[in-house]
């Protein structure tokens, strides 16, 4: 027991409203709430609370709230409560601090410093309720030779591409880190939306092969669950080189989350930590990547696009250029705000760069080198709204991966405790009693709703700009203006300051 650390959040119960129905007690996997038969009242132990809001949401009388504790150490702008607590925690345990979900630190959010254009007078806005407004696109290599058949018609010389009805895909989240029901929700939503979900590095559960045409399967350094049938089942294959939340290290799935089913899907023993190597041990250089790309293409008869996913790091543009020349069809870039089921806190909070800057650099570099058409660019790592999607595409992305937003749609309240495996919302857990809390009938519908809503908003914003195809927005940086950005940021983003003319 660590006597030093006081809980950061407190459970506050309105005794005038609590009817002691004990729903909170039954719903808390962290065992915060307890009924005291002597007094007939509920008791809460705040130090167990992770602030996931399950009890708050389910309390029928709205008697609960979680508040940030006003218990504080002597105020210190340098040594804030959390920093001090982390020192206590490590002094207590001797271990690396673990965290989940994306970097929560108050770094600048460049999405919020870019503004979108609209048409006035010289050019009409287009009304998406009355005119076609295309958000359909194809992902993959576009450069291809012009060849004609004997009748003079163009031959299809294109490499395989992925067709998307919306410029949004669900990013890689492995079975193991998230639950069966979360995966089912994502798969069914991707199918209904005409887009894709991504298995992450945990293999593909046998029940989900039927969603193959909407599935991107991942091959990561741990090679969990990778075999011929897995590759063949998918619409595309993603090589995971890195992840925005933890650039430079591999995935980590705590043994507690490796159930029988997860063990079978991953092809690893039950209950033992699954720790992916930091590098792929067959890729120590760019030419090695090319070999893996082509091995995967050979294995699947050149019928599927290959995506290479990397974390946004300092030398991102040069790395992306190398990937574009490695035979990959799509580059996925994950920003430093990207989520995770478990990452060392220090890495999550201090390694990598913002996706906005990484994207702008990569898109420009690939154009400077004349190879932008050789690859599509997917970005993720905290795409929070349809406006972020529009800005990302205007900067040069082909489409966006959403992970955290998708989990929020499923009920996640960003308590950032996925690594504990006791997710009260049935998402980041393998405990059957908790997994069943996420009914995929509800979950998939909420995902469909979210993406449909975003797509409507994207269409509204496109229409305002007078653009009726998402493809005419891609890389259209004149549609963006910066606000509160310095010269270097404007230069890297390749945009003008608000108020500057066209």
């Amino acid at each position: 027991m660590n006597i030093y650390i006081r809980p950061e959040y407190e459970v506050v119960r309105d005794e005038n409203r609590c009817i002691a129905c004990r729903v909170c007690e039954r719903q808390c996997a962290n065992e915060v709430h307890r009924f005291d038969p002597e007094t007939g009242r509920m008791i809460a132990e705040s130090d167990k609370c992770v602030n996931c809001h399950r009890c708050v949401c389910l309390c029928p009388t709205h008697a609960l709230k979680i508040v940030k504790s006003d218990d504080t150490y002597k105020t210190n702008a340098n040594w804030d409560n959390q920093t001090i607590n982390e020192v206590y925690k490590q002094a207590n345990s001797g271990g690396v601090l673990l965290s989940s979900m994306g970097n929560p630190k108050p770094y600048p959010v460049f999405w919020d410093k870019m503004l979108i254009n609209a048409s006035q007078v010289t050019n009409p806005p287009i009304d998406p309720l009355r005119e076609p407004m295309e958000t359909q696109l194809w992902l993959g290599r576009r450069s291809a030779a012009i060849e004609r058949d004997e009748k003079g018609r163009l031959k299809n010389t294109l490499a395989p591409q992925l067709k998307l009805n919306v410029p949004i895909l669900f990013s890689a989240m492995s079975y193991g880190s998230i639950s069966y029901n979360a995966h089912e929700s994502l798969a069914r939503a991707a199918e209904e939306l005409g887009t894709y979900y991504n298995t992450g590095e945990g293999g593909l559960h046998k029940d989900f092969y039927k969603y193959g045409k909407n599935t991107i399967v991942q091959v990561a350094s741990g090679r969990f669950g990778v075999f011929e049938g897995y590759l063949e089942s998918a619409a595309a294959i993603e090589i995971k080189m890195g992840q925005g939340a933890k650039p430079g290290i591999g995935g980590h799935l705590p043994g507690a989350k490796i159930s029988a089913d997860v063990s079978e899907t991953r092809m690893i023993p039950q209950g033992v930590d699954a720790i992916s190597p930091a590098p792929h041990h067959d890729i120590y250089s760019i030419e090695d990547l090319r070999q893996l790309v082509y091995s995967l293409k050979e294995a699947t008869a050149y019928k599927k696009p290959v995506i290479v996913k990397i974390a946004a790091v300092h030398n991102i543009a040069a790395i992306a250029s190398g990937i574009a020349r490695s035979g990959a069809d799509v580059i996925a870039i994950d920003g430093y705000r990207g989520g995770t089921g478990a990452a060392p806190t220090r890495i999550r909070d201090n390694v990598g760069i913002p996706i906005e800057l990484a994207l702008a650099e990569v898109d420009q570099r690939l154009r400077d080198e004349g190879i932008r058409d050789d690859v599509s660019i997917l970005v993720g790592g905290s795409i929070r709204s349809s406006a972020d999607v529009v800005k990302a595409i205007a900067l040069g992305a082909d489409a966006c991966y959403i992970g955290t937003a998708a989990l929020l749609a499923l009920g996640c309240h960003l308590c950032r405790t996925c690594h504990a495996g006791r997710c009260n919302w049935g998402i980041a857990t393998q405990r059957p009693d908790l997994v069943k809390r996420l009914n995929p009938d509800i979950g998939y519908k909420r995902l469909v709703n979210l993406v449909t809503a975003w797509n409507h908003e994207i269409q509204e914003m496109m229409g305002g700009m007078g653009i009726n195809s998402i493809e005419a927005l891609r890389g259209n940086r004149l549609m963006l203006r910066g606000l509160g950005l310095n010269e270097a940021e404007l230069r890297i983003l390749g945009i003008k300051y608000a108020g500057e003319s066209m």
Partner: protein
Amino acid sequence: MKRIYVNEKWCLGCHLCEYECAFANSGLDDIVKALKGKPVYPRVTVEDCGEVHFAVNCRHCSDAVCVRSCISGALSKGDDGVVRIDREKCVGCLTCVLVCPYGAVMPAPDGHAAMKCQLCTDNGFGEPNCVKHCPNNAIVFEERAEVRA
């Protein structure tokens, strides 16, 4: 007819339905006022056994034993298929409580009559309140093939 069905696969055993039922049938418009500090008499009960949970309420059987066994004619099946109990006619013999194979009829709090789920047609809610508040769609109100009982 539309009935309430429970899918055990999604029932979490949170017991919210019981409280929402008791509130719906309390005649009060505030859940705290209705339930705070009072014994709760729901018409739906969640059966728990280890990891299995199941909310049980009246099936509104096509040929309902409770209706057939009622000695005072208080229980009847309406044209809409809903099995209802007339409190004025009920003499409180509780035969129906004994014969219901599901345990879905229970003594009313006053002890002078029986009570059962009437799909919230007898209160101001109009639609089953347990269904509306089930957080996991475990309790649904829908049309399915006839149930024999």
